[in-house]
């Protein structure tokens, strides 16, 4: 039976969105601790798309200049995780995190570091949650900040492009009355996607077993 890697069943989507929301809420609590104010993060939807499709999705309704915090991860499934914003919104995000007492010039100076740390918190939160939920261990690299359009971020022109897919999560931030919309993208090769799906299935069946056990 041929498995379409781009297809997620409804239940798979729900499960992944659930896991992602657990991850970002973990990140939100870290941010809250840091910022000292209410931070709301949510992942309204999840899809698996090709890198080309992902490149187009991140540019939709946005200027082509994007900024991303990137981290690679290894474990049962491997790849790169990206937190992506329009470049202008990234500064809004930093401004809302570092606070109003900093001038515009200060924020521009701090942007790179602050963005890297913020992205690190969010991506770690997601990846750590996935690892926790699935009871697996992963290794995650340090964050780096990259800039460019969608194609550059997803290395659309790279050699292995056809073989890689993107688990694409929309993410909404709300910090200090500032609304920022971004994306979390997990670039993985086909085996990693298949492994992720298999792990998600295990997760689902474990939950079902748990529920039926409760019922029975």
């Amino acid at each position: 039976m041929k498995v379409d890697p781009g297809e997620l069943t409804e239940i798979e989507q729900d499960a992944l969105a659930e896991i992602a929301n657990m991850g970002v809420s973990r990140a939100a609590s870290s941010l809250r601790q840091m910022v000292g104010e209410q931070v709301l993060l949510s992942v309204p939807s999840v899809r698996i798309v090709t890198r080309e499709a992902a490149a187009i999705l991140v540019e939709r309704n946005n200027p082509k200049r994007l900024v991303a915090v990137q981290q690679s991860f290894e474990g049962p499934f491997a790849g790169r995780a990206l937190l992506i914003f329009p470049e202008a919104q990234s500064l809004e995000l930093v401004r809302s995190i570092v606070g109003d007492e900093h001038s515009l010039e200060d924020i521009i100076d701090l942007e790179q570091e602050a963005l890297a740390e913020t992205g690190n918190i969010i991506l770690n939160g997601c990846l750590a949650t996935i690892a926790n939920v699935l009871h697996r261990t992963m290794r995650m690299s340090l964050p780096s900040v990259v800039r460019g359009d969608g194609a550059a971020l997803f290395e659309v022109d790279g050699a292995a492009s056809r073989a890689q897919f993107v688990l694409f999560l929309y993410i909404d931030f709300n910090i200090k009355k500032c609304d920022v919309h971004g994306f979390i993208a997990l670039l993985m090769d086909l085996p990693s996607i298949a492994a992720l799906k298999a792990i998600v299935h295990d997760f689902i069946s474990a939950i079902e077993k748990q529920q039926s056990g409760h019922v029975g």
Partner: protein
Amino acid sequence: MLDNVSDLVFGAVFDAVDIGLVVIDSEGCVVCWNEWIARVARRPAQEVLGKSFYNIFPDARRTRLPAVIADAFQVGSSSILTHTLNALLPLRGEGGGPLLHNIIVRPVSSMHTNYCLLQITDVTVAVTRERVLRERQNARYHAIVDSAPDAIITIDDSRNIHWVNGAVDHVLGYDHSELLGQKLDVLLEPDNPLLPALAESVADQKVDTAISVVGRYKNGKSGYFDISLGHWRADQRDFVTTVWRDVTERVAADAALRDARDALQSTNEELESRVEERTREREIALRQLHESQKMESIGQLTGGVAHDFNNLLAVILGSLSLLKKTIPEDARISRLLDRAIQGAERGATLTSRLLAFARRQELKVEFVALQKLIPEMLDFLRHSVGPNITIHVGVSSEVCAVEVDANQLELALINLAVNARDAMPQGGSLTIACHNEENGKRVGLPRDPFVCITVTDTGEGMTEATLARAQEPFFTTKGIGKGTGLGLSMVQGFTAQSGGAMRISSRPGEGTTVTLWLPRAKQDAKAASAETEIARTKEARHLRVLLVDDDILVSMGAADMLLDLGHSVTEAPSGAQALRLLETDPPFDIVVTDYAMPGMNGFELAQRIKEKRPKLPIILATGYAELPADRSIEFGHLSKPYTSRDLASALDKALD
């Protein structure tokens, strides 16, 4: 996987690196603590090894460190904690100041044991350098913008004010902080050229030249500003820095200068036009002076010639009338004599016209009612102008009487009618109208009031050139032999001599109007002064007449007439001679003297005689109005040329 040698080298390297390295085991205890961290934490390795990290740095429990260290152990995540977002460890630099640092937390595994590596990086230098650079840059920047005399205002693409310099206070009257967050529009009058320029500036992102606008001070007053725009982008947003230069005083000074220049120019123009006007007036005055001098000369010449002719005609007429009496009845001779008399009489008419122009004719001023005189003339006028021309006469009862010589007035009206007829060869209408005129100053007359008689035709009119010469004697537009050119000259002379004036207005194709200004009769003058002809013939009586005339020919003629009338005559060629004769000779009954004589004139003679013989009647014979007007009534009067009958009548009157 290090051997013992490598282990030794690793230990040296571990202590030599310029970052802090701390390894923590899963229990949270410190297992490695390098020289660098020992230095900045002021805790040597032997003091901390084996102790809990959170005992060494109790405040670290309140940071993200416990969570990221736990994650590193549990899920293998690597984290970065920056000084920007976190207050981290209480580390101090060599100088004792706080040490700014970032911490990287990574999981590390060795011999199946998991550890967590903390890398602590000193960023104090970098941060300080950045701050110094920024402060230096800011210092330069503030030195410029804070000392700038112009207001500098930075706005975003929605025209919200983000930043202002201190000069907004004295330029626009606002406190430094008052404008922040407001719209730039509060500083502008509506419909400002700045707003479209700003929109364009954002769209084109180009450097613009200064824009002149009307701005608003805080106190609500308006002022003029030159505003230059500098467009820039930061943080993906558009900003425009506007520099406001207050040019209100310069604009006001320019306006004042412009007004002064305009005023000067208009004064100059006025001066020039006055000079032109004066020049024109002077030219007109000179021309009028020249004209009047010319008329005066012509008048004197004409008057002199006419006077001499008049004397000659007097002789001819006198002689002819005597001749007619003495020569026996013969039809042929009588006819020849009549013709000669007629010719001489026409000559006398001509000279009287010349004298009229020269204002030297004898005027018999009387009370003339125009309501009576003009209608009486109507038949004669109709006859003069012919059937093709209709005559309208309008003399209302309010029109006052005039004091003029009625015969001369009639003659003037006839002249005008004849001129009108000649201007209307195809026929037309002639209108004679009268009205009272109070103010004579309009036509340059010194005394008031007047009656105006206007004679208007519907003829071909006159060009300006013709009009200018119309009053000159001998000027005529009629063919040779058709006119004497004395018509209007006579009218002009008559009105002037009567104390009035004549004005002609005409345009080619629009007819001609001649207006006669005649002095109004005094209220108490009597309408009945129309002279009743004294037609009674005195019974012949013998008079001894002293005849004084310097012209022998005239004297002889007059003597002949007197002898013919049955009187005795003693002739004297001069006043002096006459006085001597009056002394020596038997008493005369009457003196008849010419007026114009060399030495003593007739009037002087008459006065001398009157002194000695107050009762002796004196008759002055004058060819023109050379007699002082007020004195002429003292003596009898005889107009030259005169006939024998005129002479007889004058003698009768004088002796009455």
